[in-house]
């Protein structure tokens, strides 16, 4: 599959000379779900902004799609949802914020309205559409920011910490929306520090250490089961993975759902049944 983002030797230096990102190579291909994992202050947001063409790298370069345009030339195909919703939502109402992207693409009003109501329903924002952004709670603003990034129907979506402040029910809705992007042939890149949620949104992971260097790049399972490398970055495998690793499982599950499935299989295969009435949720 062709790369949609191809970055080589990316580095970024803060004005005081501190390195935020150090010599990062990054490739995202059509249909991929990529996670950028790292501890607080690792430079995930900085890397995401470099990949989205919002910061000028001090070294290296980023290429988009066929390489003929820079980031500003592919804004209609590339969405970057920044970490701070109060900055990302800058229109007087949520409805106008959601319409901001489609309006720039000269999408007919009817179609824009359909997109807005669809995503508002999916992310439970319908009743806030005519509210000003600052009236919303943290989780609502976070969902609204994602919705605003998705209404232009971009092919590549880069999202920074989409689950911060979002409750469990709406976390599922956010995951579904991100899955929807990939299902329609798009690519998602999610910057995240929560290893429990990471396997839900990424098949491949770039692991950053606390000085902004990629220490591992590989399939999610490989990265999240490598407790030793994760520990060097101040991170740990998902909780369910740790439970199964502690029990000596060589192929521990990465998600609660997979863990429950594995346990049920064990229970069902045992004889006599240990818990015959227990059904997986």
């Amino acid at each position: 599959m062709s790369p949609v983002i191809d970055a080589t030797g990316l580095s970024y230096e803060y004005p005081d000379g501190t390195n935020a990102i150090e010599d990062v190579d990054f490739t995202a291909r059509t249909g991929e779900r990529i996670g950028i994992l790292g501890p607080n202050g690792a430079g995930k947001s900085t890397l995401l902004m470099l990949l989205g063409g919002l910061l000028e790298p001090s070294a290296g370069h980023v290429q988009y799609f066929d390489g003929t345009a820079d980031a500003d030339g592919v804004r209609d195909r590339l969405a970057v949802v920044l970490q701070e919703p109060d900055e990302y939502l800058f229109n007087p109402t949520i409805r106008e914020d959601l319409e901001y992207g489609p309006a720039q693409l000269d999408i007919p009003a009817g179609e824009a309205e359909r997109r807005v109501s669809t995503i508002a329903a999916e992310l439970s924002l319908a009743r806030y559409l005519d509210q000003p952004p600052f009236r919303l709670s943290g989780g609502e603003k976070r969902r609204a920011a994602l919705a605003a990034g998705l209404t232009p129907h971009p092919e590549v979506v880069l999202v920074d910490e989409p689950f911060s402040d979002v409750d469990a029910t709406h976390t599922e809705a956010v995951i579904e929306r991100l899955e929807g992007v990939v299902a329609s042939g798009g690519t998602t890149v999610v910057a995240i520090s929560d290893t429990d949620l990471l396997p839900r949104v990424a098949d491949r992971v770039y692991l950053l250490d606390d000085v902004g260097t990629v220490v591992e790049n590989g399939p999610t399972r490989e990265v999240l089961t490598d407790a030793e490398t994760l520990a060097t970055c101040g991170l740990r495998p998902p909780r369910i993975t740790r439970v199964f690793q502690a029990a000596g499982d060589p192929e521990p599950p990465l998600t609660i759902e997979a863990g429950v499935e594995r346990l049920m299989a064990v229970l069902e295969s045992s004889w006599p049944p240990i818990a015959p009435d227990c059904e997986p949720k």
Partner: protein
Amino acid sequence: MTARRGISGSRADLATLPRALAHSRETAARDGFLQRVHPTVKLVGLLALVVMAAGSNDSIRLSALLALAVGLGLISKISLRPYAAKVAIATTFAVIVVAPHAVLTSGPRIGALPVTTTGVGYVGLFGLRVGTCVAIVALLPATTRFADLLDALRRLRLPAGLVAVVGLTHRYLHQMALDLDRTMLAQRSRSISRASYRTTWRSWGRLLGAFFLRAFERAEGVSRAAQARGGRIPNPYAERRTLGARDLGFAGLVLAVVMMVLVP
């Protein structure tokens, strides 16, 4: 008043800004006369009334315009107390500014007082004019959602950049007020001992410094977010609203007032 009370008083004053803006939004959503008038018609109409008031030197006409503004406010179901407070504050300030004219303007004196009838007349007329203008202008935010007001400005073909700046300023005025309020609340929640005046004002200065840096950072963040989202100022999907009887009625009323004021 202690220094700490002074700070918390300022915080309370500051907290009234989002509340006041929230109140405007609430009255703008009411089912009143002006709320149903097309925002563009309303903007132009009220602007015409303000021009008439600002250009008038006739206290009777000004009083009639003031009464009209109050009447429009009443049938638009706006809350009279905050409305009257706005008008009173603006009028008082204007009167204070021009008060020296009561003494300095030549003319017959009023009894033994050092003021002249001409001067008092001027100050009174100026106060009435300012009060009337504010009474008319205050109807606009009280009966119009800000998004509709921006839409009206766009329909009037104001430069898109200017409308965007107005919109962003309004949006971030709220945000900065909330940010400052939260910062001050946080400072208050972490104040353990009773501070002296000196310490309190020093920490107040530090807080303001941090706040301005935050405001600068916020501006950079917004600029980056706008770039991430295309950065072009689009034509939003304005509600296609045709003019109705209320719009024509309001336009007719404004026209009648303009004629009345212009015709000697």
